[in-house]
């Protein structure tokens, strides 16, 4: 029986090679979209799943009352008090939530490593990477102990046994105690793990939120109880004490200053579903749930589109199979057998489509990986299981409907030959066509809106001008002499021809500034970002001072107690005449809280990406606080002889600044562009998907128009005989498709408007949704429809009238 079915299938495949190929191609594009989404989905959900402790380990986050910022860091005494007083907590571990980047030295070898984790001595109880060599327990317990990953050990030690060897990190010697194997993906995938994170003088500082904190609960502990108890630790040790110190009642203090809210994120779900926080949440970053949903949603839409296509074509071409089905029924086929036969055909096509899809995925995986910055591969039992599931699902969704439709053909009508003009199934085909138009409209509108937002972001006046300004990392460990070292460097590199201006500030364009300090003025609490800068910085970046003056070396007090604030801060503080207002800052010295006088108002500029509003900012000279927490030198260079200038800078850097680090630089504009790299990606994604959708939809429309017009050949012949002219016929034939197109568009704009509005909500600076993209989408959709339908209609009107009048 199957052999018989197969013969018929092959016959039809050969008969309509192009349509069959396009049909398989359409399905395989839809399926490959879903495969891509699944690969991404699996990877994003795989993080930390290997970890046997994933259920018991929690990351501690603090939501700071007054600002609403969520920090991933905690203080040492808080963690230790919790560990000591809460019986449900088995142990705690302090760990940096970021990787340190530094030079590792072993004998004469020097390697720069970007994945260094500094942590507590029980790190391996939280991330139990398998130990390949060396101690299995208490690895980091002794002072100055370190562990190294398998790959890194090979790189640094070659064939030597790393255990017991001494390496230098941050000018301190460490002994390698163990070699471990990293299981990926994990929130932490360190090349080196160094113990001894706790600095002595932080041990009693409740206000120093410098340490990432993980807790491990005992089995069966109720996490809500733990959280309650942790809140209590914070309340007793911080809120109560602070309230007392300020001389307020607790209620009053909490009302004014808010209270820290502690959040616990389970390791199991933390990567993808963790609480959003300011600053990095884990060294390997967090999952991009939004992109994941966008990918999954769009790929499902495309799959549905291709399924609809398949169903439409299958039912439309079913007419060609009507006689065959009639005969089969006459000679004894039951309805079930007919259904089975057509599902069998769908199964073959879906199998082909899946093989095709796998080939497409395999070929384009490198681009996809580059797009996601991932390293996805096609493998894993889970993936193949999902593939089988897709196989089944696609067969059911694509196959059942046409099969039932075909099996319901009435034998008598079919064999009498007056079947080909029957109206059955038209209603469903037309609504599916409308649905396709809707999806196409959604994609076109979406792509246009995403495109114009990205355009807007790329061209917006940011309030600063980074043309020809480069950022050079300034690696200098000693904070006490860093300022002096910077001054010398500045003087020396200004001598290089081509270097026009040199300045610095503690931060980067795109990421923001390195510190933020709160203070209260006139009863208003603010938490502005600190712009700790060198003279000439605002001038070099073409940032305008709208009132008052810039800080200048001419005024001695500018390095002591004068500062600038930005427009946003002035507005928040409600200052009418801000110049010369004296503000008590949050910083103290031996004389109490330091006071600063406002000498100028800086025009708002975007220091972070356009997702965020312009933050409140204070600007002060780097000598005022002497924190020296700047990490880069900014230099404006002439575009002429740039290569030569950079070469000279490189020479100077390697000789005088830090010989351990290679010279590196980045144009400020390029650095800022990273803030919308994600959106550029989404734009490109939308663009590619748009092409795919339009190709599938156009093909579907063409095929459907062909089938339905060919069924009207007799009607056209009669009309022609009666004297209809070509243009009247064309109008008659294409009229309905224009109506479908309009209805489909009407259906598509609603979700397009709602979803894109939601997408735009992420941006503090965004375009409004105008009618332009809708207009363009409508016109292009109509245009495409007309081209396809008219082409086919024109071809149909050229038929030989006699042939069709004689027929039947």
């Amino acid at each position, binding site marked *: *029986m199957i052999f*018989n079915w197969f*013969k*018929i299938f092959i*016959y*039809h495949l050969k*008969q309509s090679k192009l349509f069959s190929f396009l049909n398989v191609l359409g399905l395989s594009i839809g399926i490959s979209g879903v495969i891509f989404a699944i690969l991404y989905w699996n990877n994003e959900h795989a993080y930390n799943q290997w970890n046997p402790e994933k259920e018991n380990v929690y990351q501690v986050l603090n939501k700071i009352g007054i600002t609403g910022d969520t920090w991933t860091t905690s203080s040492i005494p808080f963690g230790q008090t919790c560990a000591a007083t809460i019986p449900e907590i088995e142990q705690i571990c302090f760990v940096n939530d970021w990787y340190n980047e530094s030079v590792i030295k072993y004998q004469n070898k020097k390697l720069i490593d970007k994945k260094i984790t500094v942590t507590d001595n029980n790190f391996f109880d939280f991330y139990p990477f398998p130990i390949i060599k060396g101690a299995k327990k208490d690895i980091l317990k002794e002072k100055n102990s370190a562990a190294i990953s398998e790959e890194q050990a090979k790189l640094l030690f070659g064939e030597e046994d790393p255990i017991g060897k001494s390496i230098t990190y941050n000018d301190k010697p460490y002994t390698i105690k163990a070699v471990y194997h990293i299981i990926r993906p994990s929130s932490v995938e360190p090349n080196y793990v160094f113990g001894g994170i706790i600095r002595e003088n932080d041990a009693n500082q409740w206000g120093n939120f410098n340490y990432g904190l993980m807790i491990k609960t005992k089995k069966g502990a109720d996490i809500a109880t733990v959280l309650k108890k942790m809140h209590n630790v914070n309340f007793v040790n911080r809120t109560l004490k602070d309230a007392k110190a300020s001389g307020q009642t607790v209620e009053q203090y909490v009302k004014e200053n808010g209270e820290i809210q502690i959040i616990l994120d389970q390791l199991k779900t933390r990567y993808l579903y963790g609480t959003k926080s300011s600053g990095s949440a884990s060294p390997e970053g967090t999952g991009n749930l939004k992109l994941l949903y966008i990918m999954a949603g769009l790929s499902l839409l495309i799959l549905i589109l291709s399924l609809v296509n398949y169903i439409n074509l299958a039912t439309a071409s079913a007419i060609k199979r009507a*006689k*065959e089905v*009639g*005969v*089969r*029924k*006459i*000679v*004894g*086929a*039951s*309805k079930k*057998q007919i259904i089975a036969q057509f599902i069998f055909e769908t199964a073959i096509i879906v199998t082909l489509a899946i093989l095709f899809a796998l080939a497409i995925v395999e070929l384009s995986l490198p681009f996809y990986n580059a797009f996601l910055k991932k390293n996805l591969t096609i493998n894993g039992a889970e993936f193949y299981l999902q593939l089988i599931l897709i196989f089944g699902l696609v067969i059911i969704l694509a196959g059942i409907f046409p099969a039932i439709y075909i099996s319901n053909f009435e*034998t*008598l009508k079919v*064999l009498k*030959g007056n079947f080909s003009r029957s109206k059955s199934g038209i209603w469903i085909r037309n609504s599916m066509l409308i649905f396709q138009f809707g999806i196409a409209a959604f994609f076109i509108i979406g792509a246009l809106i995403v495109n114009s937002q990205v355009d807007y972001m790329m061209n917006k006046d940011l309030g600063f001008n980074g043309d020809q300004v480069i950022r050079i990392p300034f690696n200098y460990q000693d904070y006490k002499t860093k300022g002096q070292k910077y001054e010398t460097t500045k003087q020396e590199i200004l001598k290089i021809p081509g270097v026009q201006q040199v300045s610095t500030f503690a931060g980067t364009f795109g990421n923001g500034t390195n510190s933020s300090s709160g203070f209260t003025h006139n009863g208003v609490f603010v938490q502005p970002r600190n712009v700790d800068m060198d003279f000439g910085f605002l001038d070099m970046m073409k940032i305008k001072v709208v009132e008052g003056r810039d800080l200048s070396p001419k005024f001695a007090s500018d390095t002591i107690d004068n500062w600038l604030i930005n427009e946003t801060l002035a507005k928040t503080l409600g200052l009418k005449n801000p110049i010369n207002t004296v503000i008590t800052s949050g910083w103290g010295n031996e004389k109490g809280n330091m006071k600063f006088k406002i000498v100028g108002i800086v025009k708002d500029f975007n220091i972070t990406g356009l997702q965020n509003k312009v933050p409140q900012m204070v600007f002060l000279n780097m000598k005022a606080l002497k924190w020296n927490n700047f990490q880069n030198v900014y230099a404006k260079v002439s575009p002429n002889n740039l290569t030569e200038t950079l070469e000279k800078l490189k020479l100077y850097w390697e000789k005088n600044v830090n010989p351990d680090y290679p010279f590196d630089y980045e144009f400020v504009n390029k650095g800022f562009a990273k803030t919308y790299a994600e959106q550029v990606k989404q734009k490109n994604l939308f663009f590619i998907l748009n092409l795919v959708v339009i190709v599938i939809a156009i093909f579907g429309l063409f095929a459907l128009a062909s089938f339905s017009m060919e069924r009207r050949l007799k009607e056209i012949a009669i009309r022609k005989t009666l004297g209809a002219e070509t243009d009247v016929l064309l109008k008659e034939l294409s009229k309905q498709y224009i109506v479908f197109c309009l209805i489909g568009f009407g259906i598509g704009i609603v979700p397009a408007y709602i979803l894109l509005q939601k997408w735009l909500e992420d941006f503090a600076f965004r375009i409004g949704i105008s009618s332009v993209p809708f207009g363009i989408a409508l016109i292009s959709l109509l245009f495409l429809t007309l081209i396809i339908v008219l082409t086919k209609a024109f071809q149909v009107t050229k038929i030989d009238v006699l042939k069709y009048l004689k027929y039947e």
Partner: protein
Amino acid sequence: MITIQNLTKVFRTEEIETAALSGINLEIKKGDFLTIMGPSGCGKSTLLNIIGLLDSANDGSYKLLDQEMIGLKEKGRAKVRKENIGFIFQNFNLIDELSVYDNIELPLLYNNVKASERRQKIEAIAEKLNISHRLRHFPQQLSGGQQQRVAVARALVNDPKIILADEPTGNLDSKNGNEVMELLTDLHAKGATILMVTHSDYDASFSQRTIHMKDGVIFSEKLNQRNVDVFMDAK
């Protein structure tokens, strides 16, 4: 073998009711060769379709092998049909996409006949109908007469109890038409039960009995004399 009593079929549209068959009584015995004749629209094809279980009646009784067929569900009808009835059509109704062999094989497939047995049966029937050399061809490569012989082979391959032929010569020239009629006569001589619908008096003369229908009723029935046989055999 077939007993029909008071069979009625009414076609209803929104405005009018048309009685296609009104009170038909008919009996067909095993080994009969019966022809139904009549003008277009007299109801003869409807009667054939009801007997062939492709259509259903509104009223009356239709017994096939002493089993009541009226009121039987589609599934049951399909079963009776595939086991008992062989069809021959005016337009052959062969599946163009399948070879002659595959076309003849279809009823056997749907009757779950074993593969080895299928081959035997197909080869035997092809031999009988003189189309053995055509088994690998496709219907479009054959002449009309050959196509109809394939259709007859397909109708016979499963040894049906009765053969229903709907104007079997309607699409054939007289030479090919004669061949097919001789084939049917031959089958009848070997004991097959045949019910045929035709417009042609000539074709009808091959059968034992002819029924004339008009406006949904049987108005005459006569026994045929095979007095043309001699002439035809001389051909």
